[in-house]
């Protein structure tokens, strides 16, 4: 059942640097995120351990958009937490820009939107989005804040407090907050989960547009196959418990990808293929 993770990664395409490959002979795109032979197991007490990730390999090139796709509980969020440095791998190596993951966070160059929106309940939408400026001890660029409020469609809600917002609106605030410092690396954990289908597609479009402007290295966790294919350069499909790389799909459809691309035969074929791969996993469970 388990294909070799390393093989799939190597077949995975242009921008991917194969895990464990020797230093580039030609100047390949710099590797922004690297997880090498990572195993992550959690201590559940009473000498029970739960292995969330096993022998996991992933490499994201600078400026690349990679989507992680997999059944829930397969370790997608764990991968993201390892890349933020919030979690330490049990074994293996996690590098961001060739350094320990926490370094990027300390230098305020990491943008993250977790599954939980984690907004400050006493702050307005505007203040919540400005928070990263304050934590970086930089003067708040209000023009940038307001631009992002426009981008995520929250004009008119600048002064609203989180409890006055719907779940989807809170998530959009969290996305704006993740983007506000123009980070070098962007990590998004099911950021559109609470959105209705229409808003979700619109936000997908906005994210694609922002990404095409800046080419931020992005790792997106999702269980929406279409979203993954629409946005990503590569889609990594994970197996369930413990999480491994089942398949890496390169998506080389031209950008900008508009909504109508989702109806093209090529797009549907990729989506169907990936959906089948996810289904295999469900049947196995």
């Amino acid at each position, binding site marked *: 059942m388990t294909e070799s993770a390393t093989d799939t990664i190597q077949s995975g395409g242009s921008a991917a640097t194969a895990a464990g490959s020797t230093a580039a002979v030609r100047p390949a795109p710099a590797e922004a995120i690297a997880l090498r032979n990572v195993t992550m197991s959690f201590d559940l007490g009473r000498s029970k351990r739960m292995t969330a990730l096993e022998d996991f390999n992933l490499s994201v090139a600078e400026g690349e958009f990679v989507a992680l796709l997999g059944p829930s509980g397969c370790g997608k969020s764990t991968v993201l*937490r390892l890349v*933020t*440095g*919030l979690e330490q791998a049990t074994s293996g190596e996690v590098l961001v820009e060739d350094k320990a993951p926490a370094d990027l*966070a*300390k*230098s*305020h160059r*990491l943008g*993250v939107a*977790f599954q*939980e929106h*984690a907004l*400050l*309940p*006493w702050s307005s939408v505007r203040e919540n989005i400005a*928070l*990263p400026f*304050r*934590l*970086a*001890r930089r003067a708040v660029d209000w023009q940038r804040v307001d631009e992002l409020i426009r981008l995520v469609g929250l004009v008119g809600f600048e002064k609203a407090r989180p409890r006055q917002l719907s779940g989807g609106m809170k998530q959009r605030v969290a996305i704006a907050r993740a983007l506000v410092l123009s980070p070098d690396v962007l990590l998004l954990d099911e950021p559109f989960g609470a959105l209705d289908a229409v808003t979700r597609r619109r936000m997908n479009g906005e994210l694609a547009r922002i990404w095409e402007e800046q080419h931020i290295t992005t790792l997106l966790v999702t269980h929406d196959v279409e979203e993954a294919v629409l946005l990503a350069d590569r889609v990594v499909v994970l197996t369930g418990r413990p999480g491994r790389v089942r398949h890496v799909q390169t998506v080389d459809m031209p950008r900008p990808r508009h909504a109508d691309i989702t109806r093209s035969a090529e797009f549907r074929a990729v989506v169907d293929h990936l959906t089948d791969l996810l289904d295999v996993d469900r049947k196995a469970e």
Partner: protein
Amino acid sequence: MIRRSRLAGLLHLWPIVALVLLWDVWVLANGYTSIVAPRPWSVINDVVGNPDAYAIDFLWTLAISVGGLLLGMLLGTIAAVLISLWAPMSAVLTPAALIVRSVPVTVMIPIIARVFGYEVYTVLVVTVITSFFPAFVLGLSGMASAPASSRDLFVVFGSSRPASLWRLRLPYAVPNLLLALRITAPLAVLSAMLAEFLIGQQGLGYLFIVARSYMEIDRAWGTALVATMLSVFAFLAARFVERRISPRFT
């Protein structure tokens, strides 16, 4: 609308009216002389008729209560902050706080007086000690109530420890600290009174002893009446502050 709400406000005063009436009935039914227990009217008369006799001691107790309350809560909050910044501090502060908490104030006061002397500021020390613990415990649990996802977020955005404290944990502790204020405010008045009664040379507690020793029964009971009002007022003021500010932080 306004008239009706005023009426409702007056209705809230029914326990006081009932208390005064019961007091009078109790005195009459038992046939107490005014030496044993005065009737409420003569006590109220003494307070209303001689505000000067109460004013200075009232203001004194008010100042000591408020000062001790704020200082004690500040120290309690600082202790909680120290622990949240540096966990090993807990091993030092928590046992001390628990000991202070489990010894009754009445027992503590003579000991404190021995240590600090029979001075005015000893009364303040007693009030500070009373006010310390609620702010300490509730402040600590308030700071711990900041959700894990928010704490993670602050780490990921490279927040410094002071910034996490100031922008995340302390704001999360505000409703709890205001709750501590409401709980502590009447207690602070009570412990200030008690300390004045036992060691003071000023304040309502002291006025009570003096009046009693001169057999000024109306004055002694009047002191109790004024102290009760002060205590109720302290509670109402704290609750007002809590209701105004707490919703902004939740």
